[in-house]
């Protein structure tokens, strides 16, 4: 997951630091999730009946903003024929990221990284991957000499990971437990 491929062009070298940083984030989160003893308890966001519904809805909010991200990015790249202000992409992304933080915090602090059930394993690994690739995306934004595919590919990975996280958590909760606050 953290392998850095030899880049074929000079411009790709500028991605080295973002990729390395993303790799470090991903590994650190995974090692932390595995190494520390889960507390079974974490402070989160008020207004929900329990920790799980809180996480389910914040994740759903982040996933919805993720869709906004894809649409506004398409517009930014001229694929929609409609101009969406840059601020929409920027702020929906920031908000989505911040919505995920209390969720990931509860996951890692209270529950830890686990792999005894496939769903949980996929979710754990995707979660670490998500923050790694998000870090890479953030750091790659200002690399103006990076290859043209950089942001679509990394942004696509971020969105894919987020959808995977939503499917393995919120969607599971809605189908297995029910829709509740």
């Amino acid at each position: 997951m953290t392998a850095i491929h030899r880049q074929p062009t000079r411009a790709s070298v500028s991605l080295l630091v973002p990729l390395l940083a993303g790799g470090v984030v991903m590994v650190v989160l995974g090692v932390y999730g595995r190494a520390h003893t889960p507390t079974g308890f974490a402070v989160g966001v008020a207004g929900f009946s329990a920790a799980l519904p809180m996480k389910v809805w914040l994740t759903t909010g982040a996933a919805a903003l993720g869709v906004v991200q894809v649409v506004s990015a398409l517009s930014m790249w001229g694929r929609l024929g409609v101009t969406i202000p840059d601020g929409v992409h920027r702020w929906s992304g920031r908000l989505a990221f911040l919505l995920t933080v209390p969720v990931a915090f509860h996951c890692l602090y209270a529950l830890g990284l686990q792999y005894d059930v496939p769903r949980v394993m996929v979710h754990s690994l995707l979660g670490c991957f998500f923050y790694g690739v998000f870090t890479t995306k953030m750091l790659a934004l200002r690399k103006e000499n990076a290859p043209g595919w950089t942001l679509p590919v990394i942004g696509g990975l971020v969105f894919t990971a987020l959808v995977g996280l939503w499917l393995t958590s919120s969607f599971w909760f809605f189908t297995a437990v029910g829709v509740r606050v």
Partner: protein
Amino acid sequence: MSRLGPIITLAAGAVLAAGLGVASIVAAPAAEQTAATADEATQATRTPEIGEETAAAEPSPSETPTFEDPAPVVPEKADYAGRVQGNGGLIAISIRDGKAVGYFCDGRTEVWFKGNAAGERLTLKSAGKAPVKDTVKATLGVGETDGQVSVGGKKWTFVAGTVKKPSGLYRASAVVRGAEIRAGWIVVRNPQGGYTQVGAASQDGEPVDVPRLDGDDPTGPVSVNGATVTPEDVDGFIEEM
């Protein structure tokens, strides 16, 4: 927009996570706090709100740093029962003073589990002598517990709500004329009325027909293979497990 925008975004996330960390350590159950530490934690959690638009994600904390639901303290006494998904069986888990017992039964297979209820998460292991341990892993929530039950190498998920008598877990154990009779039942009251129940009984380890419990009086005597036994509720049998 500044060149540092993305860095600030990442930093805001890190600060928010750190604030939650501090608040969680401060608000950890059974942790002794001074007022000063609690104030610091509240400040730390508020910081990202000021820097970034996290108002939607972070409602203002009240006077205490615990602005989520209170610490999920393990109940001294709780009874859960529910359906095992994709299996058709029922599962019941009961907690009494730090001890947890569980029972899975689908009419053919039955497994008793036991373990400690020390935290929000329970791990129960099969009580028998089987070489491969069957397990129940559950997370206690508000009004329900959910998790996985693993029996004979197969796994299912379940969600079990809290139940009140006469719903719950029952067990009968007796030696009648030299034969060891054992039986277990899970009784769940249907929302529309009546009871769903599943049970299994054995005599000297061999399965025998299990009688139905009277839903309105589940601890009334029943006949297992001709022997009269009295089912006990969790309070009656938990000491024996």
